[in-house]
């Protein structure tokens, strides 16, 4: 204890003088000047004559006089310059050695000036040292010549400053260019990074959709609109006569019938002409390539983002050794001068502290592991049962609806007609809260709980997707049947017409039948039907989600807020309360919405544009809603820094939505009278056609070889091998990473331990020293001795958890010679802190190796 107080006194002594020092900025610059100027030293002392300062010049002169007087003074000043030969009386020819020595000394002093500011000396001492050093340097820098560099240097400093400022502005500009960054930061500061991660995901999705939109509109929609045939020129671009009366009705348009159905929004509008316009744009080919390219691009982007996020790493969680202290001491930004920003900063600091506290509490939790495991298994079993049950329910309902579809429509009640939708929405309503309740059993960290929740609801929604696709394929097959009959009928009619015409006019030159485009008999065009289904789904999804926010959040918040004045219980704290932001629901909504876009974009090119609009409005709307009507979660938790779990879900959905589209492209025949592929056997025939007709023959040959199974099999094999190899390599890296991390942790612990146990290791040294016959072998650091208190605790040998080599070694040594230091008769006062060791008071060796053990006083 005694040592500590003494030490503290010393500390105080050392710190105090730091007040009221001279400005360091100036000094810093100064030293730089000198360093810069040093280069021009050899230019001679003439420069010094030109120096503006009289005072200095006189000093220089004095110095020079000293030099002139003789070697004595010089030798004293420059101990290395004794070899100087011909410098007598001639100032301009200092010898090399002299200059070198001078340089050395000047350099030393400069170093002193540079580091002076960091020396916790008393103010007076500091000033004196500074003055001495400065004078010395001024003298000799002057003597060695400088001055010319000054202006240049000043200019340079100005330029560096300007450059720094420019860089800063540029950074600011870059940040300002990130869309919605401020909005998201604001949300993050109040609701934590988990909610913000949803908005970041939304923004990313918006970017992706913008690119898809660019592809779709630039390469498909615009060429068709600009260069293709106008509306009303052919049958597929005209509303049929039967529908024309109601084609502009709002109810029809709202269902995407009427003019909407026969517009560029849908597949059927596009013409199958091989090339259009002046540019000879191959629209059908472009349509197919864009349709497939959207998938390719999305896959690439998702995977690349995942890889990058994985590099940035981090599962949230651990941030290194100083999470809390860094947060405490470096989180306030001293630049903040705006009250509003300050408020946000307070909120964000509080939130981030809460996040870390949740993590920490989670780490500290120690409970019955067996019970926990049992509960987790139980919860999973229950949820699996739920999922299985709802899966079976969906299967059952879909099967029943197929039976109903074969029956007469009039016999069915309203419920029976809408059974599938009803069951689906019921499941969507009941299951997520149920899962959440069951997940309480598991008692995971909220971040992990969110992942489980996402995965489970995802599995549930897959059922949704399944029913939807099932219904769609039923519809498509039905339409294909109808189309086949219509196609046969039209062909028969056309043949009839040709036969009649040629027999009537007795000519083989038959003009095409003159029918108005709106009267042409046409097939059902299943592609447009599918497109309309998707668009309708998206629109209704938007409506539902926006209404949910409006009612479930906004209306609720308004009621809770204002009815609270006249209600029997506290609405804000009690039952309804304000809503929380539903992260899992929103993320999954976004993911499935994107899946619909990917699937539907091929049949409805306008869908991508619609989605861009949706995401845009959704961003503003949800940001507003969350700030205005929601309260932060009870346990604000830190999201994992990489949004990779969301990305993984997205990738899965992307893959799932890829399947039906590729299936239709590869197997189903396109409609005969609508869309860019009409008249082809299969959609991909346009590619074959292009290869055959437009590309040189050898490319066709190459293509034939490339599609040869003999070539494909080895390629696939090679790919599998490559994947295997890369996987192994990455696993190796991961292992290495882990090892390094562990080593770092060990080194850190070691360091901490060493500092803590410095006394104990030295204790061993002491004991060794005492055992040795010649004590002088041990170097001076042996002076370090523990405070007397520690010695007592040590002799008892009851150090809990004191592991490590040092201590063990000590044990052995002391076994060999039990307490050999007993009779040491040194004055206890001398056993103080070592003079050169500023590392605070060192406690005894009893401190354990692990973190967090209480000190033993």
């Amino acid at each position, binding site marked *: 204890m005694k040592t500590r107080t003494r030490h*503290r006194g010393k500390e105080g002594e050392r710190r105090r003088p730091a007040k009221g020092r001279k400005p360091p900025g100036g000094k810093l610059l100064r030293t730089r000047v000198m360093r810069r100027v040093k280069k021009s030293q050899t230019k001679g002392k003439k420069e010094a004559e030109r120096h503006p300062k009289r005072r200095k010049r006189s000093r220089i002169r004095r110095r020079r006089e000293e030099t002139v007087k003789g070697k004595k003074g010089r030798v004293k000043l420059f101990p290395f310059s004794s070899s100087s030969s011909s410098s007598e009386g001639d100032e301009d020819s200092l010898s090399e050695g002299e200059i070198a020595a001078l340089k050395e000394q000047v350099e030393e002093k400069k170093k002193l000036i540079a580091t002076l500011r960091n020396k916790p000396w008393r103010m007076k001492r500091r000033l004196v040292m500074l003055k001495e050093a400065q004078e010395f340097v001024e003298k000799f820098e002057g003597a060695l010549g400088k001055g010319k560099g000054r202006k240049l240097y000043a200019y340079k400093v100005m330029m560096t400053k300007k450059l720094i400022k420019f860089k800063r502005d540029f950074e600011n500009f870059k940040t300002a260019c990130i869309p919605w960054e401020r909005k998201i930061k604001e949300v993050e500061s109040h609701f934590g990074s988990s909610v913000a991660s949803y908005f970041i995901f939304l923004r990313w999705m918006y970017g992706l959709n913008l690119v898809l939109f660019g592809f779709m509109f630039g390469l498909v929609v615009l060429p068709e609109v600009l260069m293709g045939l106008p509306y009303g020129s052919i049958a597929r671009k005209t509303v049929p006569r039967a529908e024309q009366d109601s084609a502009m009705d709002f109810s029809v348009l709202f269902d995407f019938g009427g003019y909407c159905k026969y517009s560029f929004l849908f597949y059927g509008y596009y013409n199958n002409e091989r090339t259009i316009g002046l540019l000879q744009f191959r629209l059908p080919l472009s349509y197919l390539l864009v349709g497939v390219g959207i998938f390719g691009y999305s896959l690439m982007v998702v995977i690349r983002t995942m890889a990058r996020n994985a590099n940035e790493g981090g599962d949230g969680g651990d941030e290194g050794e100083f999470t809390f202290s*860094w947060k405490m001491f470096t989180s306030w930004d001293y630049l903040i001068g705006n009250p509003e920003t300050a408020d946000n900063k307070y909120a964000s600091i509080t939130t981030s502290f809460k996040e870390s506290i949740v993590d920490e509490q989670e780490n500290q939790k120690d409970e019955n592991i067996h019970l926990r495991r049992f509960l987790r298994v139980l919860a999973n079993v229950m949820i699996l049962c739920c999922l299985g049950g709802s899966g079976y329910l969906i299967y059952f309902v879909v099967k029943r609806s197929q039976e109903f579809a074969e029956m007469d429509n009039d016999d069915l009640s309203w419920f029976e007609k809408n059974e599938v939708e009803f069951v689906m929405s019921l499941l969507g309503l009941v299951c997520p809260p149920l899962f959440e309740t069951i997940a309480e059993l598991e008692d995971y960290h909220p971040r992990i709980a969110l992942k489980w929740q996402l995965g489970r609801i995802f599995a549930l929604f897959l059922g949704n997707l399944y029913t939807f696709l099932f219904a769609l394929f039923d519809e498509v097959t039905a339409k294909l049947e109808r189309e086949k009959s219509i196609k046969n009928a039209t062909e028969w009619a056309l043949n009839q017409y040709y036969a009649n015409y040629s027999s009537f006019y007795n000519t083989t030159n038959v003009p095409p039948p003159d029918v108005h485009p709106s009267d042409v008999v046409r097939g059902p065009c299943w592609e447009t039907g599918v497109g309309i289904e998707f668009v309708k789904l998206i629109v209704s999804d938007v409506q539902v989600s926006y209404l949910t926010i409006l009612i479930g959040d906004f209306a609720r918040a308004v009621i809770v807020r204002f009815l609270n004045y006249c209600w029997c219980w506290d609405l804000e704290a009690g039952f309804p309360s304000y809503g929380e932001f539903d992260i899992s629901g929103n993320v999954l909504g976004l993911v499935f919405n994107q899946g619909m876009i990917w699937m539907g974009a091929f049949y409805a090119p306008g869908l991508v544009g619609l989605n861009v609009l949706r995401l845009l409005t959704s961003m503003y709307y949800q940001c507003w809603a969350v700030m205005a009507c929601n309260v932060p979660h009870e346990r604000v938790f830190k999201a994992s820094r990489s949004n990779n779990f969301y990305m993984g879900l997205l990738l899965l959905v992307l893959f799932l939505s890829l399947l039906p589209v590729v299936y239709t492209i590869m197997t189903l025949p396109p409609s005969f009278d609508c869309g860019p592929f009409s008249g082809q056997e299969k959609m991909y025939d346009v590619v074959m056609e292009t290869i055959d007709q437009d590309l040189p023959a050898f490319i066709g040959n190459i293509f034939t070889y490339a599609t040869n199974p003999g070539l494909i099999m080895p390629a696939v094999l090679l790919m599998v091998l490559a994947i295997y190899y890369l996987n192994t390599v990455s696993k190796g890296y991961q292992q290495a990473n882990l090892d390094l991390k562990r080593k770092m942790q060990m080194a850190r612990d070691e360091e901490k331990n060493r500092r803590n146990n410095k006394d104990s290791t030295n204790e061993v040294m002491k004991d060794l020293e005492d055992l040795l016959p010649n004590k002088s072998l041990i170097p001076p650091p042996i002076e370090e001795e523990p405070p007397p208190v520690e010695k007592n605790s040590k002799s008892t040998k009851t150090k809990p958890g004191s592991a490590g080599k040092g201590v063990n070694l000590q044990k052995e040594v002391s076994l060999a010679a039990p307490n050999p230091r007993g009779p040491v008769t040194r004055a206890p006062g001398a056993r103080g802190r070592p003079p050169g060791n500023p590392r605070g008071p060192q406690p005894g060796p009893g401190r354990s190796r692990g973190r967090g053990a209480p000190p033993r006083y």
Partner: protein
Amino acid sequence: MGNKQTIFTDEQLDAYQVRLVCVFYSRLHGRYHELAPHLVPMDYTNEPHCKLPLALIVNMPELKENPFRNRIVESFSEDGMGNLSFNEFVDMFSVLSEMAPRELKAIYAFKIYDFNVDNYLCKEDLEKTLNKLTKEELTPEEVQLVCEKAIEEADLDGDNKLSFADFENMITRAPDFLSTFHIRI
């Protein structure tokens, strides 16, 4: 450059070692002057001894929103009460400028966070810091937890409080310390 001659003598500037940053100086002097025009003379050639009280300096827009503003001013004033002479004023902003080295910043950051001026960051200091940072939004238990964890993380010598060595060791590794611990003026 013309401005400086009217305020400081050449000798003074020489002593300050600020020939290159005299612009900065005159600007700072301007700021200092406008805080209390009736107290601070425009002419600084004869080194007048005047000090501005804490209440005036704390109201500068640069410091106004800072939760530690009182501590900042106090730790730069020689008497510890927050009265700043012009020298100390300059000192404050040069330490908080971008040019100041990390070590120096660390020393002053330590002083700022050391509320009870005992040269250790003990638990009470941390609690005060935390309450200022979060506007006392955290519950006492949470504050307790955070303070304990912070000490546990940074305390190398196991005395349950942070000495400057501990603090420096921790702060020099902090990624945003330099970017957050500075004020532009």
